[in-house]
């Protein structure tokens, strides 16, 4: 009995609270006269109170969706997006949590993205509106492409170009892997031209195909520049597939190489002069300025981070970029991207198309890198293990680690990690260049 009484009291308290909240919410200047009337508190029976409280619950919003409910951006939401859509999103988010926590798949980004998605799908709270937390974060750094650049700065400060400088021609492998981007661009165009399953514009095709660059920040940068409406799906696809690199790449690598080729041992790399490392970011910047100014935001931030690291005199700044700054931005980036996982935006047939094309892009990039490495091995004076071509998709340093793992499985003791880091970091530059080309086309 006592419990029942307590429960009733609590419900009463909540009901009054919700009414006060409603009333105070209505005191906005744009309130109409009709709303102003509601401000006057009328005595109601407990039954009415319970009913009106029920109207404010998320339970009702999901179970009894209504027409005319708007999302954070003021667009009307369909009945499906309000009810089953939300439930489906909660299930998808549960899967993302599982992948991040139990499977350890890119947890640093998948977890904040998934949680952002969870918050974005809460009914009534409208967290994705311009005054909601997620909306503020989104407008602060994703709509204007700022956060990906900060991430790139941190990645630059973490990257060691030593392996690339000691064997410059492996940079071409990082170029070949960009076929993943352009090949899937054709794939996306064909999908919307001939199947009619989806209807992507060329801009949208380009934004999707950048998933093949296997580079999260670049994908988000391009998506928010060319097709912000697809950002959520593109970011989720890019990070999920990056997390799946150890699953996607090895079968392709094995299929395209012979056992002898996989067992090739590469010569150890030479020691790189510190001055070379210091000058390298400046060389890259100089080339970007001359050839592709459109890529300078990405490459400029990257080169700045790397220059700060290699200069050796601003360790405090470079440490900040590698640690605190990149961590803070990762939180914001994840939540901001998560805000685009609202059911009405994500549960569309385009998302399925993006997932398919993204997988295709990853596979094509890996294959092109491996084939290019095979060709280089044939015509080169020093042996090149074709496996390192797979590291040409960026996904630093995961792709290089996968290469090393496959290599040492074939021949224990054959450590390819340092050799694979060359194409790996070249892949970052390559995908930034590819991104610049796509941006320049749509100028």
């Amino acid at each position, binding site marked *: 009995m006592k419990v029942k009484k307590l429960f009733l009291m609590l419900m009463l308290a909540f009901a009054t609270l919700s009414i006060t909240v409603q009333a105070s919410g209505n005191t906005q200047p744009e309130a109409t006269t009709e709303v102003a009337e509601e401000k006057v508190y009328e005595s109601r029976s407990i039954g009415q109170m319970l009913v009106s409280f029920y109207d404010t619950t998320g339970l009702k919003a999901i179970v009894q969706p209504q027409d005319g409910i708007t999302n954070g951006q003021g667009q009307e939401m369909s009945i499906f997006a309000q009810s089953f859509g939300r439930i489906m999103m909660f299930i998808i988010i549960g899967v993302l949590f599982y992948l991040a926590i139990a499977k350890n798949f890119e947890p640093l980004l998948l977890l904040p993205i998934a949680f952002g998605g969870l918050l974005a799908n809460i009914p009534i709270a409208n967290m994705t509106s311009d005054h909601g937390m997620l909306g503020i974060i989104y407008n602060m750094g994703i709509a204007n492409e700022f956060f990906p650049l900060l991430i790139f700065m941190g990645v630059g400060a973490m990257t060691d170009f030593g392996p690339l400088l000691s064997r410059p*021609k492996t940079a071409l492998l990082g170029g070949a892997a960009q076929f993943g981007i352009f090949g899937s661009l054709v794939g996306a165009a064909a999908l919307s031209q001939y199947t009619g399953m989806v209807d992507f514009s060329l801009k949208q095709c380009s934004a999707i195909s950048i998933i093949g660059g296997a580079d999260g920040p670049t994908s988000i940068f391009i998506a928010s520049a060319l097709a912000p409406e697809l950002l959520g799906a593109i970011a989720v696809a890019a990070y999920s597939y990056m997390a799946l690199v150890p699953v996607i790449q090895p079968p392709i690598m094995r299929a395209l190489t012979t056992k002898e080729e996989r067992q090739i041992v590469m010569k150890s790399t030479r020691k790189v002069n510190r001055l*070379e490392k210091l000058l*390298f970011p400046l060389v890259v910047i100089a080339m970007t300025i001359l050839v592709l100014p459109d890529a300078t935001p990405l490459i400029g931030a990257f080169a700045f981070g790397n220059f700060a690291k290699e200069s050796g005199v601003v360790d405090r700044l470079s440490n900040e970029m590698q640690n605190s700054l990149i961590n803070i931005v990762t939180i914001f980036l994840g939540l901001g991207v998560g805000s685009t996982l609202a059911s009405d935006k994500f549960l569309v047939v385009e998302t399925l198309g993006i997932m398919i094309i993204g997988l295709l892009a990853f596979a094509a990039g890996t294959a092109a890198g491996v084939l290019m490495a095979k060709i280089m091995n044939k015509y080169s004076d020093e042996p090149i293990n074709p496996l390192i071509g797979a590291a040409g998709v960026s996904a630093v340093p995961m792709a290089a680690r996968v290469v090393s793992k496959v290599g040492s499985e074939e021949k224990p003791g054959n450590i390819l990690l340092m050799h694979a880091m060359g194409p790996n970091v070249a892949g970052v530059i390559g995908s930034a260049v590819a991104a610049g*080309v796509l941006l320049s086309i749509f100028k």
Partner: protein
Amino acid sequence: MEEINLVSEALKFMVLGMIVVFIFLAVLVQLMKLQAKLIGKYFPEKKPMVKPTVQATDEKAQTAAIIAAITEFNKNKS
């Protein structure tokens, strides 16, 4: 706008993109080789710089070994 064949446009993008990416990286490769050569020729003093530090650590290790030996010896004496 609707008459544009998406696939042929995408193929053009691909040709342009792959050419630019490859030229960019090929030039970068040449520049890396060039700078390695130039730096190796005109600023080679960096390499000997590395050796003394290695020696220094060796010396330190030696000193540490000597100190350890002496303390051990003193301990045994007392």
